[in-house]
């Protein structure tokens, strides 16, 4: 039998203190690099910022970023154009009718799709769209690649948003004689809208920061996008970051940091917006159903 022993208690207390110290230390170990990333990008990015960045296009390794900024916007909104409708419809299906085997397996594969490396998606599009359909580097190929990447997130967010709508409301609708379509679009959809918006914003933040799937689908261009969907490469901000930092020129580095600053600011703003949205609709949990 264990007897009360003051040294043993002391030892246990000491071990506990060490344990908590390690937990705090590991938090600092990841928090400090994050703060340093933000600090580095803000310091070097802010000093590279100028008005001409937003008004002129890239000229070799100097000039502005207008082509990259507009290109990024075209690519991410193009991606949302595909991903939002498909993702939202799939999410509605999963929450309203997804309890059978098909729904369960789609939910599972949805998770698997989020784990497919983005470079694999990029190469897939390179093989099928850029070469196979002969689109060459183009905004359409880039957007579709991004869309495949973010569609599982939109679907998942939408599903969770719809699952949070109490069933009694749906039943009330049916009791009034509404059809399924009306119940879903007029009763459930308005309540699920903030959750859906969260998903779309999340998808936007991810596609803004992606590089690997775009390099061999969107290509790169020094010029402003001329509105052609295929046969025309397009510039984007993340390309500037990875390729210009490798150039041994001050102007190229400045552009890379300015691009990183713009991307990080957009991603940060979206994430702050996201956490505010999530706070308002707290129980972002999967359906217990």
């Amino acid at each position, binding site marked *: 039998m264990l007897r009360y022993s003051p040294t043993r208690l002391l030892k*246990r207390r000491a*071990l*506990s203190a060490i*344990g*908590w110290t*390690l*937990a705090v*230390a*590991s938090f600092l170990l*990841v*928090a400090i690099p*994050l703060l*340093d990333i933000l600090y*580095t*990008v803000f310091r*070097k990015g802010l000093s590279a910022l100028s008005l001409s960045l937003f008004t002129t296009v890239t000229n070799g390794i100097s000039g502005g970023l207008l082509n990259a900024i507009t290109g990024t916007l075209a690519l991410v909104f193009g991606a949302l154009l595909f991903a939002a409708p498909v993702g939202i*419809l*799939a999410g509605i299906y*999963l929450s309203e009718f*997804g309890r059978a085997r*098909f729904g369960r397996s*789609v939910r*599972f594969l949805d998770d*698997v*799709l*989020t*784990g*497919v*490396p983005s470079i*694999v*998606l990029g*190469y*897939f599009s390179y*093989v099928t769209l850029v070469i*196979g359909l002969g689109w060459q580097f183009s905004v359409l190929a880039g957007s579709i690649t991004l869309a495949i990447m973010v*569609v*599982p997130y939109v*679907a*998942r967010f939408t599903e*969770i948003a719809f699952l949070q709508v109490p069933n009694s409301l749906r039943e009330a609708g049916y009791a009034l004689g509404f059809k*399924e*379509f009306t119940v879903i679009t007029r009763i459930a959809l308005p309540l699920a809208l903030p959750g859906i918006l*969260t998903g779309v914003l999340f998808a936007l933040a991810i596609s803004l*920061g992606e*590089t*690997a799937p775009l*390099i*061999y689908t969107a290509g790169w261009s020094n010029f402003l996008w001329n509105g052609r969907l295929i046969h025309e490469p397009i510039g984007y901000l*993340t390309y500037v*970051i*990875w390729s210009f*930092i490798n150039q041994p020129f001050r102007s190229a580095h400045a552009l890379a*940091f300015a691009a*990183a600053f713009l*991307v*990080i600011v957009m*991603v940060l703003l979206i*994430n702050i917006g996201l*956490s505010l949205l999530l706070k308002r609709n707290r129980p*972002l949990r999967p359906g217990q159903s």
Partner: protein
Amino acid sequence: MTLRPFRIMLVLATSLIPLALLAILVFLAKYSWPAIHFNGWHFLSGHTWNLGNLYANPVRQRGQLAPIGANYGILVFIVGTLLTSGIALLIAIPVSIGVAVFLAEGLKTRLRGALSFIVELLAAVPSVVYGLWGYVVLTPLVAHDLGPGLRAVLGFLPVFSGPIGSGYGLLSASIVLALMVVPIIAATVRDALAQVPPETKEAAYALGATHFEVVRFAMLPTVRVNIIGACILGLGRALGETMAVLMVSGGALNYFPRNIYSPITTMASFIVSQLDSAMQDPTGMAVRSLAEIALILFIIAVITNIIARLLTGTSRHASL
């Protein structure tokens, strides 16, 4: 039963998700088929990647047209991928569990939200920005401080001794990957810890355990399966990570790492760095061999994710 256009529309949209996975598999396999034939098993065991003579007339070997001397072996990149991901997990697992314990149990409710947000931001930073930070901040740090420090302390082990080089290499890539994987593992473990039934905790308290002992001996063991699942999920991310690794790994070609500071290349980053030169191959065999790498990467990612999801259940957070 009446035909319901709305439902049909829903089903059609939903089937696009499994179809996308299937299409990736089918088209990558179809496109790389000639390369699979040409390379055989040597693809996995060979360690030289040589485009061959692109200016001479291509010759027919093993039924496929390829440049003279073309040889595609990816063992170096497989090793690079496994080593970076393995070391990254070795760093990330204890740190993530520490972070998860700290966030789930070590904080008052109000602080918890703010500090959790910091970890969530870590997941939101684009990988190319990690690469930029690695390039500008981390590699000099590894070359001048971290590397020499490690060698001074652990230099008696062959892995930690030898030339440190420029800082681009295995160690830098693993550290960056670890940073990217921590938020994934930490968030999953934190959620699992939050779901531990209060009875379990109270029982441990009733036995006289300190708060830390409750976490260590009552809570962590009950979430063991979730921790394993989360680690495999993190592994899946690390295996496929491209840009950040590309920017700090030093891009070694055709030789194996000699120590932890050696330059390396992973399968994913190799695809990005090589497609430009592969396109010069008039027979297209190099581009098809890259597709074979993508196919292998896809299969590995799908398998790791299936295992991870079976262990953790479908994602609790839509964002994971």
